[in-house]
């Protein structure tokens, strides 16, 4: 995975995330009115194909975007670099993917 490829993935995931983040922020602000409750959130998400696809794709994009960003920060601000770093970040990406999709399943199913 060369630098140009990583850059492409980073920018593509960013472009996907921009509208998703706007929707998510809007939803958070709407949902926080009158306090958060499980019943309110789950009544919106459970059984919803739309939210499953929305948050599923959101999770995948974040699992790509965050580790690549972290890679830049760690390589530039710490002495850590090379294969060890790359594999650790791949592991972090998998962690985000697994935990994220699990969270989506938790509120959708």
């Amino acid at each position, binding site marked *: 995975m*060369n*630098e*140009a490829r*990583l*850059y*492409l993935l980073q920018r593509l995931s960013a472009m996907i995330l921009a509208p998703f983040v706007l929707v998510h922020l809007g939803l958070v602000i709407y949902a926080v009115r009158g306090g958060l409750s499980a019943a309110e959130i789950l009544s919106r998400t459970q059984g919803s194909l739309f939210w499953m696809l929305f948050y599923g794709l959101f999770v995948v994009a974040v699992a790509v975007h965050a580790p690549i960003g972290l890679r*830049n920060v760690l*390589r*530039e601000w710490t002495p850590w670099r090379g294969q060890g770093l790359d594999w650790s970040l791949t592991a972090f990406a998998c962690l985000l993917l697994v935990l994220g999709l699990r969270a989506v399943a938790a509120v959708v199913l």
Partner: protein
Amino acid sequence: MTPHKELEVDIWRGAEDGHFHRFRVPYRDNQTVLDVVTWVQRHREPGLAYRFACRVGMCGSCAMAVNGRPRWTCRTHVSKVSRDGALTIAPLRNLPKIKDLVTDMTGFFEKWQKAGGRHRGTASRHDPPARVPPDSAPRRAADAGVECINCAVCYAACDVVSWMPEYLGPAALNRTWTLLNDERYDERQALLTAVSVAGGCHSCHTHGSCAEHCPVGINPTLAIAGLKRATLTGHLPGGGP
């Protein structure tokens, strides 16, 4: 008639493990920072090492860090930068110090070469000259960057250079962009490979410090953005092999 004034000037002496030494320098109207350095070397410290050449803002040799900011000292008026009659002069950041205000620019030029800096044409003297419309998009893109005289001010201003030793830097990458836009250059595709290494164009994080500090008004951030786009599409500006 203004009263005779003195400046308190801290100048870096030594190499990496050097220190600032304070000099008292007579203030003159229209004095530049280069005038100050020259006065110190002539009247106080003959051993002070510094570079200059044209002293009229054309060659870029006199670039130093004035109050932490990289600039051409011959084009910096003391009246504009001194704070309460005080001034700090140091060698450029991100370059190894040789002595006092002189830095080793070898690495800077090596990166210039590594990014493809040397122009190689495809035609010979027997071929007719290339007909390049001056207002074509690639020519205008190249023109925006060709005035670079390798003064290393942008290199000193760049935070990514200071964070990442292998980062090619704004000057080298700006140069690559001018070559990529030059249809007379051979192997333009090889340029894209050269800047796609670790520490290549993708390491630029668009701080824009290079453009902010360039004394010639070049914008390497935008040039590097062009390189990034080109590495994604593989398309050369203006088409061609």
